[in-house]
């Protein structure tokens, strides 16, 4: 696959809680040329090996803070800083098997000056999950 900078290898792993695998996480960097305040994010959607997760199934982590997508509206002074990762935490009991997975992330943002609102960006990558 061609070099891409948006879906990161680092951070791609299953999520373990109380000894169970409850989901998986994948980190993304935006393709926009500046960072944005959290409420400007309209939505994240993750498709893994053809299965799509959206809304309450996908939480987002910026630095040390985890938010539901709806809750982003309530944090008008927190940011997705430029070139920093957002870790998407997807609820999927059992998580993913070790090995290659096709990942697609669709990010929608309300960029006020653009002719199309929201701006929609789609990132794809083939990632390798270790555990």
């Amino acid at each position: 696959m061609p070099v891409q900078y948006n879906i990161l290898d680092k951070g791609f792993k299953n999520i373990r809680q109380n000894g169970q695998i409850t989901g998986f996480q994948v980190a993304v960097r935006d393709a926009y040329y500046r960072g944005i305040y959290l409420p400007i994010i309209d939505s994240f959607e993750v498709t893994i090996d053809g299965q799509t997760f959206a809304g309450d199934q996908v939480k987002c982590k910026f630095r040390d803070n985890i938010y539901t997508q709806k809750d982003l509206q309530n944090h008008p002074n927190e940011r997705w800083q430029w070139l920093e990762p957002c870790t998407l935490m997807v609820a999927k009991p059992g998580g993913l098997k070790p090995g290659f997975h096709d990942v697609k992330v669709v990010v929608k943002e309300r960029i006020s000056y653009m002719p199309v609102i929201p701006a929609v960006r789609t990132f794809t990558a083939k990632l390798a999950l270790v555990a």
Partner: protein
Amino acid sequence: MEMTRKAFIQTLAGAAAAASIPISSASESTPAPAAATKMKLGATVYSYGADIRSGSMTLEDCIADIADMGGEGIEILGEAHVPDYPNPSEKWVAQWFGWMEKYKVKPSGYDTFVDSMFYSNRMLTTDEAAERLAVDFKLANRLGFKALRQQWPPYPADNKADEINAPYVKSKQAMETIMKALPAAEKYDVRMGIELHSPTQLKSGFVDSILEVIAKTKTKHFGFCPDFSAFVRRPQRRTLAGLVQQGARKNIIDYIASAYEQRLGPEKTVAEVKKMGGNEIELRYAGIAGVYHLSNNDPKDLAPLVPYVYHVHAKFYEITDALREYSIPYEEILPVLDKGGYTGYLSSEYEGPREDHTTSAAIRAHHAMCRSILGITA
């Protein structure tokens, strides 16, 4: 010539000693502008986005590169280039000024945005928008900036018919935001240069509404930042090539390009392309108002605005081997600014194919072009 080893070493020492004597008081001959113009050259770090993203350049590397090509002004986006925006550490701010000193450059312009569609369920009020701008003004001041590339706040147009030029429209809420932000601009000693970016029409109610306010208030903190995308004579070559790759036919694309050059307008162009049997891609391109059809302003129309210009986005896409911008008539635009008395920065803003390791060469060609047009020889 044969010589003893001792003699050979002595010649090397002699050569080294001679080389260490400086040939001038300047350590390296970096081109400095002569008195041909009072305008100054610089660049916006925005141009280097691909290089920074890939990790091949840091912010400091970009500053060093701009200085190395003889640029004097550094433009940044607070929301991209300042770590922990809007509150960088004192240590970082000290380092910023250290870079200005080390590379002998100055902060030229700071870019602000107004995210009117901040929330999913409502727009920012003009009070909220002005408060957020004040945060940027404070940071710009903290970093030594005096001029801003200020985005015209994207609020609905007063006249629906103007929406084709959105967001560069006469708008009560946009103007209200600016007026509410004006006291903060004065307090933090920054000048809001409203960016005149495509699809701005220079002869419009939008620009007139700004001139009216400037005339009425005599403010020195609100004016313009022309972006040369507003003077595109013909589409970029790579745009047309890309369309052909996507399935557009060359004859139709060539027609659309000529319609643009003649300022035919989107409705007439779409009608004509329909007659020609245009496919989806061709029709869509024919109809793009905005960053295309309505951005062919006459550089002469910039003249009345120059007294209120605080910063300039010297936008460019492709510099030809003849050192001209393929789409934008720099040789017509730069004299308007110069003769109009503009003494600020021409900030190179590269929007060609920004790929890693290609930006520096592009900006250098741009500077070479500007220098040749302005008669800067040193």
